[in-house]
């Protein structure tokens, strides 16, 4: 058995509070029944189940929670929050943990690369353009052939445009990105 942590540092407690207020919920409500984890469709792939993530936060072990693979495996399907008998919004906590991990640079490369590639496409063109998204994503994870087999399949069905469409208001959209950033946003 590893080290047992009995009390968390004050900074950790404060960070947990920040996570709770960002997700408008309280981890202390949880009585660890495990209903969230029984119904979680991705529980099988997680290192900590949703119940365990909540337990980590109850104990103030925020560092462990932020490093858990689970927060990047969560598919945000909201089954846990819907079923929780104590009304804990677990899915929103997962979201808040992802944003905090992003802020601290503790990220799963694939997921944050995808999100950044997606948002860059939106910022640039006003809409998402799948082909540029996949190219940028592949460049970011340094795997030029990831998902490459699907490109021609989609193109054959007329589902993939080679060139992006620019909307007229793309300036407006990129201004929203700039403005949100100026107001304290977290994106690149």
């Amino acid at each position: 058995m590893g080290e047992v942590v009995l009390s968390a540092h004050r900074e950790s407690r404060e960070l947990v509070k920040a996570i709770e207020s960002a997700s408008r919920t309280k981890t202390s409500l949880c009585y660890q029944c495990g209903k969230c984890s029984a119904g979680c469709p991705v529980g099988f792939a997680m290192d900590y189940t949703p119940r365990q993530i909540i337990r980590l936060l109850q104990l103030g072990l925020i560092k462990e929670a932020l490093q858990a693979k689970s927060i990047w495996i969560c598919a945000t399907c909201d089954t846990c929050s819907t079923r929780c008998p104590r009304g804990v919004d677990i899915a929103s906590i997962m979201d808040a943990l992802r944003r905090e991990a992003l802020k601290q640079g503790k990220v799963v490369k694939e997921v944050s690369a995808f999100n950044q590639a997606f948002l860059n496409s939106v910022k640039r063109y006003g809409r998402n353009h799948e082909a540029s998204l996949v190219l940028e994503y592949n460049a970011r994870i340094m795997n030029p052939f990831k998902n490459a087999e699907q490109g021609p399949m989609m193109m054959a069905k007329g589902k993939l445009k080679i060139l992006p469409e620019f909307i007229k208001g793309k300036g407006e959209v990129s201004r929203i990105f700039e403005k949100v950033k100026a107001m304290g946003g977290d994106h690149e």
Partner: protein
Amino acid sequence: MRLAYYPGCSLDATAIEYGMSTQKMAKLLDIDLWEIPDWSCCGASSAHQTDHLLAISLPARNLAIAEREGLDVLAPCAACYNRMRATEYEVRASAKTRSQVEEALGIPYEAAQSTISVLELLAERYGLDNLATRVTNPLKGMTPACYYGCLLVRPVAVTGFDDPEDPQSMDRIMKTLGASPVDWAFKTECCGAGLGVTQTDICLEMTYQILRNAKEMGADSIVTACPVCHLNLDMRQKAIEKKYQTEFNLPVFYVTELVAIACGAEPPTVGTNRHFVEANTIFRQLPAKAKAMEEAAAQAGKKGKGAAKAKAAKPAAAESEKPATDEDAGLILAQKVYDDESKAAQLAEILTQEPARAAKLAEILEQDKGKALKVADALLAKKAKEKSAGEEGNKA
């Protein structure tokens, strides 16, 4: 009926047949769709995993344009629908959030209009009786599995038009079209589409379980209202069959494709040729299937107390005993729990909004009245707390 129309990026590309069939359906049903001029991306899951304000400001740009026009918005894509509803919910709940969004956009936006899904459009606004009069080619013999996925029914506070565990709207639409949707367990189970690009293996496992259950329960197809689910179930079906050494051969339809086809459109004109799993043959096989189903039902009927007949008769009887509306049902149940009128009224309001809770409470009440009383007390307390928290949020 006139609605603002937000196609979203998918309906222009990977889900092009969803866009084609939505427009075709609207034409056939005389619904006037006004495409939001110069619409932009809603930011989808990438935005809300990255930045909260960005995640509600990107949808708000489009919603503000529709608001100026005084129109509610039809968002067929379940992901766009979910993000737009979340935006409306947050802007309505907090004056602070509203002013932040308006600052980010540089234009006014107060969430005066509402975004609806195709299911709400058909089952509530347009109405199933109305839809029934438009059906010219009923889908008799078709046994689809209605797959709602997660984004259309959850979070309940944000979407809230159907049951989050056992929704019925799509099933009712399919019955109106003449089909016989199957009962199955994975209606609202997540397909993992959000993990499709980044963590493909997990996503394949999740989608495999959905396809397997649909097949086991006798479905001949799957119906969905979500482009990401469709991509997973249709485009990845071959890869899943290969990985798990099995064969599904389940065509995956958008609900709009089937509505348009039942109302007279030829399948290829709504985009069935663009599917990865072949999706035209099934329509040619329907007459034979319908005949076989009728014969089987007649056989069961001849046996007098045949199982099929008993099964068919039971729900009909239960239906007739049901109170006329959800509000009545909520109030009757609440009055059984509380003698106090004001408490009963408060409870009835909650139960009407949350049919799942109402069903649960009715179940508990049958077994143990004392326990039901405690559950109801807890429910009222929770609502009161949420209300005061909401007001505090507004002040902050």
